[in-house]
């Protein structure tokens, strides 16, 4: 039996990988790709949150938002530390990588318009993170990641609850209800895009074969819908999805994927799209990609310049 077949069989039967000496090249590559996406996503969630944190309605809200951002940086730190232990040059990854090569979701390349959007960001996007990383926590074959996710899992739940509180409170204020609906209208499908290409379009998944994760993209999307939709319905927010009794699953009431107008942050439901085009849109990046990555890299670049001048 070759290395790939042996490792796949073992991890499907519960074998936990503890070090590089347990991996074949394909496993190592898939793991590094996964951890890069995770680290980039955690870290690049902070710049959009910062765009509105000074609009916090109370000091307590501001402290909570800052605590959440600190958590996200901590989660990014964990993913990058794991990458370093796998031989990656993390300083280069963080401070020398061009903006368009970062792997954070497209949704994080936008500034937020108001405090309500920060709430929906927590309630929807952190829920997506909680769904994806909760699955990894439950199923991943990589021991060091599984252990690190104890902290992450706990904190992401706190983030999404914070988002729910902001949304629920805003829905009780007639002046803010419309803002909640407006935020949900563009952020709902954005959150669904976190889970990636539909299963039927994927020929194989190294992440699943090597059990880096346990559930498929569509299964994870359904899991997100199974908590996000009932929550939105419970507070009176309209979402373009419902549970279909016949199919025993959540179905969307709008074309998905579909084209998006990034300037007006609006889905063009009359223009259904393909996943190939969605991937192209991801790669073209959103409007704040360069600015947000520059913000992450600014301090390190300035410090490096000072060091050079001092020598």
């Amino acid at each position, binding site marked *: 039996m070759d290395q790939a077949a042996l*490792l796949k069989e073992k991890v499907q039967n519960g074998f936990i990988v503890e070090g590089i*000496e347990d991996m074949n090249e394909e496993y190592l590559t898939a793991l590094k790709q996964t951890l890069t996406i995770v680290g980039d996503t955690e870290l690049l969630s902070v710049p959009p949150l910062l765009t509105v944190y000074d609009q916090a309605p109370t000091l307590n809200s501001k402290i909570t938002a800052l605590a959440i951002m600190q958590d996200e940086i901590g989660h990014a730190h964990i993913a990058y530390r794991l990458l370093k232990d796998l031989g990656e040059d993390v*300083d280069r990854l963080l401070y020398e990588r061009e903006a368009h090569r970062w792997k954070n979701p497209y949704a994080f390349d936008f500034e937020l318009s108001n405090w309500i959007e920060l709430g929906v960001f927590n309630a929807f996007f952190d829920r997506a993170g909680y769904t994806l990383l909760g699955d990894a926590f439950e199923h991943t074959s990589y021991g060091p990641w599984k252990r690190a996710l*104890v902290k992450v899992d706990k904190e992401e739940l706190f983030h999404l609850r914070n988002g729910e509180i902001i949304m629920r409170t805003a829905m009780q204020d007639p002046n803010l209800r419309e803002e909640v609906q407006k935020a949900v209208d563009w952020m709902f499908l954005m959150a669904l895009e976190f889970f990636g290409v539909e299963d039927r379009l994927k020929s194989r998944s190294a992440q699943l074969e090597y059990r880096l994760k346990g559930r498929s993209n569509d299964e994870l999307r359904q899991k997100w819908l199974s908590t996000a939709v009932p929550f939105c319905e419970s507070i009176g927010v309209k979402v373009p999805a419902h549970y279909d009794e016949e199919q025993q699953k959540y179905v969307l009431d709008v074309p998905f994927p579909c084209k998006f107008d990034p300037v007006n942050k609006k889905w063009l439901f009359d223009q259904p799209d393909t996943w190939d085009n969605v991937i192209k849109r991801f790669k073209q990046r959103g409007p704040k990609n360069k600015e947000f990555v520059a913000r992450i890299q600014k301090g390190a670049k300035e410090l490096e310049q000072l*060091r050079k001048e001092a020598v």
Partner: protein
Amino acid sequence: MTAAQQRKTFDIFARVKRGDQLAYIGTVEAENEELAKVYASFTYDEEDWAEMVVVDRSGLVWVRKPKWLFA
């Protein structure tokens, strides 16, 4: 020597409350032990730990390692 080369890896162990196992909770990189203590406290603040310790990874003496699959 660059800043990155001056940093060392520290492993972190902590106990949530008296009587618990001292558990491995993560790692930080730092230039020295004092900074490692600060980074560990701020990064791993998910519990109100009763005890927390940072250990320079190069000081860990392994008695046994896993039986590697492909080594």
